[in-house]
């Protein structure tokens, strides 16, 4: 029975290892249920003051694209905004924006003031399209492949590192795959 006294220690050790691994994980990030699935069906009018709206067809043109969910009331969106301006300036991949649950005037002013990095924008006034995309917070960013499938989702603010190490390499890889 002497060995029995060591059982608690063994169990605790396993627990500690699991917790250590757990520290490296990010429990708030729910993986997208839509990975590898086609982009949802939607059709949104442009944000006020912009002329190009965003619909499913625009993401099915045979090009790789990025879709960024943003709002004028969202602080981190402001923080990541310069990165998107850079992406637009580099011109390697079209960037579209879904404006989530925003007031039209506020959104228009926000884009005017800080700059509009989006090729196309869609105004999702009531958040229903966001739900179709599995959005649960802002900002979120999706990578769409040539066939109009969602291949990657990033939750939360975009950083230079993530953009350079994950997003853009994935974009390049998808662009190399023809059909």
């Amino acid at each position: 029975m002497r060995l029995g006294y060591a059982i608690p220690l063994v169990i605790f050790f396993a627990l500690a290892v699991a917790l250590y691994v757990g520290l490296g994980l990010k429990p708030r990030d729910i993986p997208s249920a839509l990975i590898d699935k086609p982009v949802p069906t939607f059709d949104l009018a442009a944000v006020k003051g912009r002329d190009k709206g965003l619909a499913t067809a625009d993401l099915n043109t045979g090009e790789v694209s990025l879709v960024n969910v943003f709002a004028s009331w969202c602080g981190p969106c402001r923080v990541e905004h310069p990165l998107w301006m850079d992406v637009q300036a580099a011109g390697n991949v079209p960037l579209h924006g879904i404006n989530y649950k925003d007031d039209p005037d506020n959104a228009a002013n926000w884009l005017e003031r800080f700059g509009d990095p989006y090729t196309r924008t869609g105004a999702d006034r009531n958040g229903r399209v966001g739900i179709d995309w599995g959005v649960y917070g802002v900002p979120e960013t999706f990578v769409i492949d040539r066939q109009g499938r969602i291949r990657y989702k990033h939750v939360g603010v975009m950083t230079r590192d993530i953009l350079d190490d994950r997003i853009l390499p994935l974009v390049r890889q998808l662009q190399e795959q023809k059909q």
Partner: protein
Amino acid sequence: MTWASALKAIAMAFAVIGFLSLAPGTPSALAQSTIDVPLEDLSEESRAKALFKILRCLVCQNQSIDDSNADLARDLRVLVRQRIAAGDSDDQTVGYIVDRYGDWVLLEPPFKQATLILWLGPLAILILAVGGIALRFRRRTVEAPVAPAPLNADESRRLAELLDDVDTKDGTS
């Protein structure tokens, strides 16, 4: 359900429907449904309520959308009501949301291979524990005491007195 309460429920349903149809400018079902108000049809609303309780509020992380004030919870409540009003079954409605958010949106973890340990765990722990205790008991059996000779009247009386005293002094804690 008693007859009285059933009648009250039916009366209330009629009242609500009646009032809403009489009031001028009653919003159409579509416009009204973006607001977080109960459905007119009571049976549909109670189905919706039941579904609210099993769907997780994703930005609160441990409340159901029934319990939460958050914007997203509200939007999902509206969505569930819309789908039910549009004729979806309970499974279809839940499936609609799970399609978009994954299994994680269900408060009750589904019973599948990945969650076997979770669901069977408690019972397994209980069985193991009982087994462990039984093993220990077997090692230390209590011998049956030899029955002592019965007490005579005098001894019985003394025993009763002593037990009386013991009762008052001996606490269990």
